[in-house]
């Protein structure tokens, strides 16, 4: 509830500002402080007709020319290889679906984040395929049987038993094979159908066995437990946010991915917008450059206004432009023109590029005010 002295500013000034005034200004000066804050706030607003988008583009672009093309960058000793620099910025702003180095930072709930058994926890998330646990394959081409010798050490580390693996194998390949023998760290598989029994399918089966998922969450290719301040977190290569968040030891409030699209799907568009801002800002900072965060916010906003993430590409934000000429002036003009002609689109000449093309005053700054003639 806003204090009586500040009532007139409710809804005009942001609630956080009002709160701050109330907390920090002495009661006697509250009204006066309110007035000063109001004046300053109004002064700091962007003027009507200011081309904020262009200024953002220039502000980011100017700095971006300084960026090194150094793609890979290790941000510390025990960090993972992550795309940084210009390629990463391009990747984010283009809203690429498949990013070069997907990565997660998994925060853990209280008892687990102390570092005890952190390796075990990390490994339990890692997407493990059977191939990694096998020490040897023995192929019997007469019986069409594959003997799988398992690495006992690795099995123990992942707390897996041959019985469990047999079950998984049966689930994955049960349709074509049957388990003929399951002994101590050894499983034998035979091709079921007689007509399938040839060398080719046998070798193909071996490849399939390698790829059987035995443990962890699909998509998490690598795990790395890292100490961050006074707790342990797990950094992963490869992401699967939805599955990870469902784990009971994971702190869902802080765990993030660097895949903007995935984040939008799981956490919503607002969160994705925030992620875009943070990711871009982090890259710029890492290069030792400084861009006002509000420029990046504006970019992130335009990418997210529609409710889904649109990249700054001809398929994304640019295709949303209302002006045919503006769209045509940015990549693949003929396609845009012909589609516009088919739909009978009308260009109202409301923004900058079209007006430059026609050599008319652009509706920005001094081009905005118009004369109104008395009737």
């Amino acid at each position, binding site marked *: 509830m806003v204090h009586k002295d500040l009532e007139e500013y409710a809804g005009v000034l942001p609630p956080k500002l009002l709160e701050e005034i109330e907390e920090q200004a002495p009661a006697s000066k509250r009204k006066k402080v309110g007035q000063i804050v109001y004046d300053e706030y109004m002064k700091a607003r962007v003027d009507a007709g200011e081309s904020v988008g*262009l200024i953002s583009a220039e502000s980011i672009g100017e700095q971006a020319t300084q960026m090194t093309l150094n793609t890979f960058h290790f941000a510390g000793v025990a960090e993972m290889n992550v795309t940084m620099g210009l390629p990463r910025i391009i990747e984010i702003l283009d809203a690429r679906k498949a990013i070069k180095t997907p990565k997660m930072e998994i925060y853990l709930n209280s008892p687990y984040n102390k570092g005890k058994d952190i390796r075990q926890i990390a490994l339990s998330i890692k997407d493990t395929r059977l191939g990694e646990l096998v020490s040897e394959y023995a192929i019997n081409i007469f019986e069409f049987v594959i003997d799988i010798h398992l690495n006992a050490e690795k099995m123990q580390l992942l707390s897996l038993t041959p019985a469990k693996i047999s079950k998984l194998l049966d689930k994955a390949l049960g349709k074509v094979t049957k388990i003929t023998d399951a002994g101590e760290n050894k499983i034998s598989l035979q091709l079921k159908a007689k007509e399938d029994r040839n060398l080719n399918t046998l070798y193909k089966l071996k490849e399939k066995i390698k790829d059987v998922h035995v443990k962890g969450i699909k998509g998490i290719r690598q795990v790395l437990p890292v100490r961050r301040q006074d707790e342990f977190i797990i950094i992963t290569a490869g992401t699967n946010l939805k599955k990870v968040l469902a784990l009971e030891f994971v702190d869902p409030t802080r765990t993030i991915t660097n895949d903007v699209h995935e984040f939008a799907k799981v956490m919503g568009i607002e969160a994705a917008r925030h992620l875009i801002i943070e990711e871009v800002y982090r890259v710029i900072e890492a290069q030792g450059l400084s861009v006002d965060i509000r420029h990046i916010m504006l970019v992130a906003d335009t990418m997210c206004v529609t409710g889904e993430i649109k990249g700054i590409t001809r398929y994304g934000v640019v295709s949303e432009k209302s002006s045919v000429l503006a769209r045509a002036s940015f990549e693949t003009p003929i396609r845009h*023109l012909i589609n516009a002609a088919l739909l009978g689109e009308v260009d109202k000449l409301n923004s900058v590029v079209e007006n*430059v093309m026609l*050599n008319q005053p652009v509706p*920005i700054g*001094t081009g905005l005010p118009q004369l109104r*003639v008395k009737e």
Partner: protein
Amino acid sequence: MATEVFLNGKYVGTVDNHRDFLDSLKTERRRGAISNNVNVQYEEHLDRIHVETTRGRTRRPLIVVQDGKSLITDEIIQQLQKGELTWNNLVEKGIIEYLDAAEEENALVAFYERELTPSHTHLEVSPLAMFGLVTSMVPYGNFSQSARLLIGAKNQKYGIGLYTANYLHRLDMDVNILHYPQMPIVQSLTHGISRNEKHPAGQNVVVAVMSYKGYNIEDAIIINKGSVDFGFARSTYFRPAVAEELRYSGGLTDQVSVPDKEVKGYKSERDYRHLEDDGIVYPEAVVGPEDVIIGKTSPPRFLSSLDEYSLAGNIRRESSVGLKHGENGVVDFVVLTENGEGNKLVQVRLRDQRLPEIGDKFTSRAGQKGIVGLIVPEADLPFTSNGMTPDIIFSPHSIPGRMTVSHLLEMLGGKTGALGARKVDATSFSPEPEERIRQELLSLGFREDGTETLYNGQTGERIQAKIYVGSMYYLKLRHLVANRIQSRARGPIQLLTRQPTEGRAKEGGLRLGEMEKDTLVAHGASLLLKERFDSDQTLVPVCESCGVIAIHDSVKNKRHCPICGEGVEVSDIEISYAFKLILDEFKSLGLYPKMILESKY
């Protein structure tokens, strides 16, 4: 295992003992039994021997070392001094041999004789041999960063000097000749070897290192008007103009003559005023922009059967050679001759004196190039207690970041040399010791660190700081503003787009590009932007009912629409011609770009 041997990259066989093979090959070469152009390399990791005899390998001379001793003995040096031995004798004797890049890989080369050990194979003739011809001409080169040394060497190649003594009899393109070239006071060994005195390219000037009213910021230099009047950096620019009487099919030829008034493309009588009866200018004519110097007419371009019989037929085309826009000069030399095909050839050489002006590029030999920022009357320049003013004022801010110590040392050496009336040896790696130069300067009555007390030329006040003053060799570089300056307010436009032409040769405009446009938009300077882009503004009549460009019939002074016919409302709109063009292109695509007009107010 046997070592594989390759001759000029091709496998020829094997040898059992590569060491013996290499040794005998080298001794035979040094003995003269094998050509000294043969080089041999042993690739240890592949156990291969490469023998090279091909042309085009860069090779450099080195003194042969045997058992840690240079083959050049005191006796040989004495013989050399007496002239009993020459370089070629040493090469023949195998005392000096040339190594290519490959053989150098197997050599261990010492810089100085005192560094020799038994494992050394060669001795550098001089550390100076590391440098090329021009690089070794940078004084005190070993005191500067290598990058600056390279820039210093590169800049010297653009210096205006006396490139040849017979320039008056030549018709070279784009020639600059310096009027009073001098030998550098501070020079290196290479200056003597290359007989630099025959083709010097700069002048020794007095340089003061200080600021002057901000006109020497960003590497600019201030030059003394008095020095200019005395001939500093004065040069002449020569440019030939050529015209040939070409022969065409049908027995038609070009004709060098004063064009008739009937000729197609006749300029104006004024433009031909310098031509004599033979259609060529007279020597020493002072010509200006667009003046014709060789009058020439050509036969009509397309000879159609219709033209041949028409009254106006046989109209020749004007194809004279004239001066370009903004060009001035004096006709220096006229040659009338015949070329290889037997065509009449006229060559005219133009001459133009070029005084140093603001924007001309100058450089010292230390890679400190700069542009003239201001030319100051001698009276206004700071002066020393002897009443001397510097020729050039050089900004101190150019020094620390670039670390060109050679620049500073040259000033000191130059000052001593100029005062002591002698040359100073500044050969890289073995210059005269700095200490001795300082002592000599002191004995000549100057401060040994080269600084002097200067007085403000305008107020006479003493300048608090001691100013570093010295003599340097400065070069005027051939990038003269006069050949590059460009500006236009109006001028020729392109036929297709009606936008200004591009480039200085075509008297073009300076393009305000996409990014420059953005800056104006960012400032909200909308109307300024529109005005800047008005260069191809056109009035286009548009049919109000169908929105297509209409036709204005200037004979009847009527407008009609190509689709709707007459009797429709046609209004003029102001758009850029480029947009009219794009509308036409849309139509060619099969699109119908309909313009919906609205009243602006």
